[in-house]
């Protein structure tokens, strides 16, 4: 509710003489620019990639009698106790619960109703039955391989060499309409290169959670300035060597955009929202800081890439997963609060990706192995939260949803549908969706309905 009063303040101050005087008085340092940035046509997608394959089986747990009994039977010594699972209350129903260390996200789901769960989503070329799986009919290539499934989740290209990511292509398609005048890339990765961020024309900028890249060691002396200019010239001259040219492109853009971003961020007010020191939290804090200067960057649409690692829990999973789930819950919650502080909670949608889930059946040293269909989380003021979308699998080994005997769920919702729903909200036209998501037309609907 607070953002309503914030908009009222903006309207009053911008459209009256008294307001103009006030703006003039405040205009020195940043305060006014933070207020003046309109939120009406701004949208951001924030991806949190859970590298290693999150064990979604222990993130979202059925708590109805039959569902939990199935889960407990197969998960055995790695099953979370039923009375510790945090119920997700949808109206009078509570059929599912969250990992016990995710109380913040439970509250976002139950109270603010700004969190949704998408069940059993995965890489699919077409709707796939158990029989089709066993006959190797039109499957994504290299299921269960980290690198391949990561690239597929990020590109929506399920075979061949991935050359561009779906977020990059989304940015390609909306760039002219929403970011036409901006001199800064629409995609920012706080976690290095990822194919997710690379379009056919879009190239991301990257930064760390702690600083903006910039050249060091220059001062105002003539010699230093000459060296600075020579450095830039060396990044643009044509040597004729292919890889040298490729490196120059990256470094040349880095110098240029680094100056732009550092300038924009120089006077940004620190957020009062508290973030933990975890790497994920600090990435999301940096995302919020950059969103705060979106007007200075001239961007109406932005995509961010963050990630967390350590999800490849082949052994001693339970204590590790406690930390991972706790961090994810706290970090996503802090970020949501930061978007409220900035008045953009309805404009920013945060979502998880992960290359696969893990076997429901435990492995030999208290861990789990690579599986397939997984559950993902979508958070934000524009999300139709407080609901579990998709079809939850039957948690029975060798049961109707199992690709084999170890609890590797054949997805019932496609990555393409999940991503296309986000892309549509972001502004991609229906006509452009099939060029970004080549398998989308194999499914009955483009839109899973979880976005408002």
């Amino acid at each position, binding site marked *: 509710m607070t953002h309503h009063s914030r908009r009222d303040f903006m309207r009053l101050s911008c459209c009256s003489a008294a307001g103009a005087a006030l703006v003039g008085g405040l205009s*020195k*340092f940043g305060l006014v620019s933070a207020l003046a940035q309109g939120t009406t046509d701004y949208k951001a997608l924030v991806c949190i990639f859970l*590298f*290693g394959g999150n064990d979604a089986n222990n993130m979202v747990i059925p708590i109805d009698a039959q569902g939990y009994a199935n889960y407990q039977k*197969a998960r055995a010594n790695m099953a979370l106790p039923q009375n510790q699972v945090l119920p997700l209350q949808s109206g009078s129903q509570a059929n599912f619960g969250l990992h016990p260390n995710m109380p913040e996200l439970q509250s976002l789901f139950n109270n603010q109703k700004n969190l949704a769960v998408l069940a059993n989503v995965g890489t699919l070329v077409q709707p796939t039955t158990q029989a089709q799986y066993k006959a190797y009919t039109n499957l994504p290539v290299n299921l*269960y391989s980290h690198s391949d499934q990561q690239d597929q989740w990020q590109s929506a290209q399920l*075979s061949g060499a*991935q*050359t561009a990511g779906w977020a990059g292509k989304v940015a390609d398609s909306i760039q002219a309409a929403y970011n036409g005048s901006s001199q800064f890339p629409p995609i920012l*990765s706080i976690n*290095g*290169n990822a194919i997710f961020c690379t379009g056919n024309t879009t*190239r*991301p900028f*990257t930064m760390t959670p702690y600083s903006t*890249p910039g*050249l*060091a*060691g*220059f*001062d*105002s002396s*003539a*010699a230093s*300035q*000459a*060296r*600075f*200019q*020579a*450095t830039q010239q*060396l*990044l643009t*001259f044509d*040597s*004729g*060597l292919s*890889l040298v*040219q*490729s*490196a120059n*492109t*990256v*470094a040349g853009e*880095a110098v240029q955009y*680094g100056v*732009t971003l550092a*300038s*924009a961020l*120089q*006077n940004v007010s620190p957020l009062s929202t508290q973030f933990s020191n975890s790497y994920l939290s600090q990435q999301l804090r940096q995302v919020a800081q950059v969103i705060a200067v979106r007007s*200075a960057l001239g961007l109406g649409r932005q995509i961010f890439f963050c990630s967390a690692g350590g999800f*490849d829990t*082949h*052994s001693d999973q339970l204590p590790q997963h406690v930390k991972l789930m706790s961090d994810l819950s706290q970090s996503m919650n802090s970020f949501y609060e930061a978007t409220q502080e900035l008045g953009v909670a309805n404009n920013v949608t945060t979502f998880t990706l992960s290359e696969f889930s893990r076997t429901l059946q435990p*492995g*030999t*040293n208290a861990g789990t*192995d*690579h599986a397939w269909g997984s559950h993902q989380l979508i958070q934000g003021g524009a999300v139709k939260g407080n609901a579990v979308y998709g079809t939850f699998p039957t948690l029975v080994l060798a049961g109707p949803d199992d690709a084999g005997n170890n609890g590797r769920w054949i997805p019932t919702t496609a990555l393409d549908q999940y991503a296309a729903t986000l892309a549509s909200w972001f502004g991609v036209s229906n006509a452009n969706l099939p060029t970004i998501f080549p398998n989308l037309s194999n499914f009955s609907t483009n839109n899973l309905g979880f976005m408002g």
Partner: protein
Amino acid sequence: MRRYHLLVLLFCAAWLAAGCASVVGNGGSPAGPTGPTLFSLTVSPASASVPGATTQQFSTKTSDGSNPALTWSVNGVAGGNATVGTISSTGLFAAPEFPPNRNTITVTAVETTDSTKSGSSSVTLQNPVPLITTVSPLTIPVGAFSLTISGAHFAQGATVFFGSAMLTTTWISSTELTATGTATAGEVGNISITVSNPNPGPVRSGAITAQVRGSNVSVSPATGSVRAGSTQQFVATVTNSTNAGVSWSVNGIPGGDATVGTIVGNGFYTAPPTVPSANNVTVTATSVADNTQSGNSAVSLLNPLPVLTSISPVAFTVGAFSITVDGSGFVNGAVVYFGSTALTTTFVSDTQLTATGTSATSQAGTVAVTVKNPNPGSAVSGALMAQVSVPNPNIKVSVSPSSITLRAGMTQTFTATVAGTTNTAVTWAIKGILGGDTLLGTIDINGNYQAPDNLPSPNPVTVTAISSADPTKSGNAAVSIQNPIPVLTSIAPGTIGTGAFQISLNGTGFVNTSTVSFGGVPLTVYYASPTLITAVGNVSAAGDVTVTVSNPNPGAGTSSGVIVHVTNIGNPVSASSAVRFLEQGSFGPNTESLNQVQSMGFDFYLQNQFASPLTAYRNPTEAYQIYNIESDYFLREIAMGDQLRGRTSLFLNELWVVGADKISDPLGFTNYLRTLDKDAFGNYLDIMKDVTLTPAMGHYLDMVNNDKPAIGQHANENYAREIMQLFTLGLNQLNIDGTPVLDSSGNPVPAYTQDDVMALGLAFTGWTYPTKPGAAQQKHNPEYYGGPMVSSDADHDVEAKTLLGQSIPAGQGAQADLDAALAIIFNHPNVGPFVGKQLILRLVTSNPSPAYVQRVATAFNSGSYTTGTGITYGTGNRGDMQATVAAVLLDAEARRGDSSTTAVATDGKLREPIVMEASIARAFHAQTDAGGFSNAGYRMEQNVFYPPTVFNYFPPVNPIQGSALNGPEFAIYDSVSSIERINFINNAVDGAIGSNTHLDFSPVINAGSPAQMMAWLNTLFLHGTMPDQMNTIILGAVNAVDPTNITGQAKAVIYLVTSSSMYQVQH
């Protein structure tokens, strides 16, 4: 516009007049009222002007009212033609698009049945009315511009009008014109573009509106704050002008001044050292092309951030005190805080404050001291800790022994006796530093002192025990440190060529003042660690030379000798060849290794590298952290004589990945690296076996304690999957040239199935950590890394297994199953091309041809590689690493870049950061403890020993955006790391890699002129390929350096050459 109206009026008047004319038939005279009535045929209009490509309807009238059939002609041609126009049977005349030279024609109507009866009209053909459909561009900058006009009916000689101005126009076709002109600032706004055709009938087209945009200057950032003495880069953007130049001013003062700050030509602003009374200034960029256009940035000048570097005294007793604080960025009005208490503070200078206050008994313990600057930009410094204690005059502390002599690196335990209090606890410090440091020696909480590796300064050092009850009371011991006795165990390489050389000496007891005698001749020595030093010299004669190491006083000693063989045989190669060979097969060339490869040739050099003694890792001491091994690792890269083993071992480490995030045990990590070193020049099957059984890999990928599965479980799949996917086979079946085998549909064929993964997981059951010495083996031994894993057959799955289509029989033990499984994998046809290609990627090029991969895979498979000159490498056993490495380095495709005539533009690879770092250090003979190298690698996204996952820092296949090429290292080359590479070079040039790293730039400084400096770097860093344009750019920057500052010139050259992509990409 007015002229256009007039033309229309004139045209209408002419047409009206023509309408009244009539023509008398057949030469008859004008009709009169009284004469006989003559027949006449009148054509209307009697005369007409007809624009091109339009029509004119003619009509006829007979004097007798008859309506005869008529034949129409133009210039006597029935129906007319394309040149003069055509006319239909009903008198509709169609003018040609463009008039003929004689543009007055006659239209005649003749009675079809009586050719004597006719009438005619005189028609003037005119140019058509031009039509504009598009103008490009529609937005025109102030200044010179060119336009393209598309449309129709453009006659040759047509003119484009820009408002009222005629443009220089080029006729391209009847549908396209181009025109050039210059837009002035006065024309800013909308402007009409029209086209006029020439005579006859100069008619203007309709107008298309274009826009002249005035230039506009904006400054980024538009607002900002800069602290006193700090800098800010401003960027001016000039839009709509072909001249982007701006001039800069501050508060209207060109270039600013000392009060408001200064700004130079490219917008680099330096704030004044102190904040002026009016602390808001305006930075302005004014367009050079149009000085009425400017942009501003509002800048608030803030006080600097105070930094605290020391406080004196550090220990206080309760009561009144005075304190001196040193640091930087202090301003008048700054206040010293003692805890939360503001002290009465005196401003001495921007680097010193003094203050007085009174401490209370309640503050006994540790109190934070900070400095706070006033507004604008008020900020608080970091804190330094003061100790406040309640005085006790009875306490006395003594240390035993009070005075000793100790050799560097040795240990001694001290005991403290505290009298006068029941609290006898002490803290230990060396020269006032709690716990000491690596330069003075370290001391733990129990008084165990470890002397430093090298003589400290001052020597002897003072060991202090400080009373915890009253920190103002302490006792001391003096430790006089002596040099150790050096022991020389081996020298790499053991054989060198004549001329400049570098050798690496392995042993113990080396110090940073050790000297090396080369048959009595002293060498230049570079100290790396107590176990590794390098020495550089020049030798002219072949023969055996005895080398010794001596340490000076105090505690002087000399090692026994080790023989180095000097030879002058070899097959010389060019400098360019030698540099490239060393980039591929070592951690980078220096002058000496360049000479060695040049004079010995590839084969002899390679054989010597294969034969070089191994440079061993130091045994981790108790105090070792992973960080210490990282430093050891960089020291080895820089100093090891068996460089090729180091590169091959790094290749293995980046293929068989383990990470210190999980393997945090220093011994475990060291032993893992030792395993790779040991096997680097052996056989790949031994690598597979040895690595599989390291507890480091066992722990990293969960093979350790992977018991046969209980009911309701399955065997751990982690190692089983990754050994096939990442270490040996890859995902898909491969041809021997590394290309994927394709099925009938053209799709790759998986190399293994999920069932294979699960079978291999079962084959790998039944292994646990090695048993600690003195302990008994348990089902699951506790985590320990002192040897290979041990089997526990009771925990091994003994069922029969099928792996990759081959059977592993039932009933075998853990070792037998493991051997069988690894043999099946090792003999899979994928291994040769898979491993061979990865080795090429790591050493030579990111885009090898399939033929190159096939030649290397063939060497792997046959275990043998024979050069064109008949030299054979390898044992002849499948998986021989020496044959494989030789095949990679000596292949024609690896060598074709040695000469500009055979070089290929797509060859090469982006250097990986940790190799690039070592290459810079080696080229400039780094004297270093390798501190800072690891952090630099982290910033360049290669955090040594901490790859993000088992997938290494970067994947083998990584398509480069905007290119058809592969570039594995580009996966960690982004906005952050590309800048950090340049900043690493900046640190290297500035001596800022680490406090104990010194690079020797004297070869550049002494090279002579800037051009000669560049020649030196061109040879060693770019193997002579520096383009002329690069040379020109760098020379321009070097010429801006004060010509008397030779070092500054040298550093500018080094910076620009080594930070360039021409160097960062090894090509």
